[in-house]
């Protein structure tokens, strides 16, 4: 017996080549791996199952309700008949208003954070605000919008109040999407432009923004999808259960798709007639939101190939 083997034996009482009584003997560790991987597969299947379950139910029950009249007519007989056209129009106005408000603001913030080199404490402060603003619950934005826009500025329950509230909620998302797009523009583009004598702003306007545009648009589209489906912020700032016709100014209150679903399920006296309409509404909203996010995803996949990367 040589010294080395003796040393090993001295340590554990086993000779080299002996099978170690480890927890991880080959068979048990293979078993653990198989079990572990099976659990992971299960997790994915549960997520997919739930998604399928939800889409199946809403699509199968909502499809029978949807017709041309459903999409183009106003509700009749205390929400038990007719269509949802005013709600679709209302959601369109609210979303468009929010985007018009937040797009310039968010883009300008992103330009400042990426293209100008502000002091680091300022960057940290802004970054901290953006992160925290992103975590604020949607209903708190609703409270803020109600106290400030509806009451404070006297805009009342209106498209304007709702759009501003939704816009503030969407701001962090727009800023980070724009930032990402701007940062993806290669530094050499800027250097080339500056070397040719262009000013800082000219470089941003003529070189950086056009190159970053697809990414910025993708972020905007994703935001549209998110804003269109939000309910809590417009609950007390913009939405109402029923309007006579279509809104005639930015100071009129509106019907909105998400709020309409909520109202159909919680108000009114004929749930058996209102629930099918709510299914139809949910299907329309789901299609709208999914189409918008699918568009954004496709656009983004295409952009992966730009800049030669």
């Amino acid at each position: 017996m040589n010294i080395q083997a003796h040393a090993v034996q001295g340590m554990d009482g086993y000779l080299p080549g002996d099978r170690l009584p480890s927890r991880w003997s080959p068979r048990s560790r293979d078993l653990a791996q198989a079990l572990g991987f099976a659990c992971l597969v299960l997790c994915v299947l549960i997520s997919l199952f739930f998604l399928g379950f939800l889409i199946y139910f809403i699509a199968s029950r909502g499809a029978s309700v949807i017709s041309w009249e459903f999409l183009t007519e106003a509700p009749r007989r205390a929400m038990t008949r007719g269509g949802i056209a005013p709600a679709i129009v209302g959601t369109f106005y609210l979303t468009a208003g929010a985007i018009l408000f937040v797009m310039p603001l968010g883009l300008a913030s992103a330009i400042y954070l990426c293209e100008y080199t502000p002091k680091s404490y300022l960057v940290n402060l802004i970054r901290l605000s953006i992160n925290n603003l992103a975590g604020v619950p949607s209903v708190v934005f609703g409270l803020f919008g109600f106290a400030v826009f509806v009451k404070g500025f006297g805009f009342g329950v209106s498209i304007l109040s709702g759009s501003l509230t939704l816009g503030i909620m969407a701001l962090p998302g727009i800023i980070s999407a724009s930032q990402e797009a701007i940062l993806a523009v290669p530094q050499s583009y800027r250097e080339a432009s500056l070397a040719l004598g262009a000013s800082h702003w000219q470089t941003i306007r003529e070189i950086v923004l056009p190159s970053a545009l697809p990414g910025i648009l993708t972020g905007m589209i994703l935001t549209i999808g998110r804003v269109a489906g939000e309910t809590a912020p417009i609950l007390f700032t913009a939405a109402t259960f029923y309007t006579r016709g279509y809104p005639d100014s930015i100071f009129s209150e509106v019907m909105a798709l998400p709020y309409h679903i909520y109202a159909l399920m919680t108000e009114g006296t004929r749930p058996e007639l209102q629930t099918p309409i709510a299914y139809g509404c949910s299907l329309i909203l789901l299609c709208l939101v999914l189409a918008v996010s699918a568009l954004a995803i496709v656009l983004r996949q295409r952009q992966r190939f730009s800049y030669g990367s």
Partner: protein
Amino acid sequence: MDNKKVRQFKEAVYRYVFAVSALASLAFLVGIILTLFTQSLPILTERPFFDLLFGRHWYPTHTEAEFGMLPLIVGSAAVTIGAMFVCVPIGVGTALYIHELASERQRALLKPTIEILAGIPSIVYGFFGMVVVAPLLQDILHIPTGLCAFTAALILGIMATPTVASLSEDALSFVPTSFREASLALGANRWQTLTKVVVPAAGSGISTAIILGMGRAVGETMTVLMVAGGAAVIPRNLFDPVRPMTSTIAAEMGEAVMGSLHYSALFAVGLILFLITLGINIVAELISRKYRLKLGLGR
């Protein structure tokens, strides 16, 4: 000469415009804090803070109105903790699957699918919970009502899953390949490498993901408003109806008279809710900062 001055002036103007826009986020955040605080001042001065926070009775419309938020806070806690039991295993499991097992094609399909799951509006989840899941659970579990903390927790958990999954996946992808290679070279199999090397290395990133998922669950409004049952009492078990903070605000704001104590109390609930999510965000920020340093990723 003049031309140059004009140009410099223009540059300066643009710089200021952008700087002001960038400060908008800060202004909105401060505005939200100030609004919540000033609007809840009447109730904060009228009632002792301790009674507000730990009072056991929420009777805002009684003649002898009471504004104890404990039932609402317990309601929020119940559905959030319940949701974590759903979204943590499923979310992290899904992330691990995408990271470790999925083929290139599966990954290209799964990641957008998760994003779509994240994009479904909360009102649709709430509606689905109300008309499909609640009656189903009521039948299966033989409970008096399907609209209860359990159902709300289940649906909130599913809603928070995409957040946890995609952030965890990001964290996993930051783990250097050399860690994996070293572990595999030492003879560990893929599962051992995953559980003993990759997951611990991504640990704080995954915890950040879980904490942010929790933030999403705490702040979710429409789903709990429609599914949680809406009883503002301290639940005795998971199958009791509850009224979390978010749904209290959403449900009662419409009927509260402006300037009344009830109105102010709802802003106070909003303030507490805001502080909770602020705390959650700060913890997540601290953890992720530490984590980036640990893996040498810089700030």
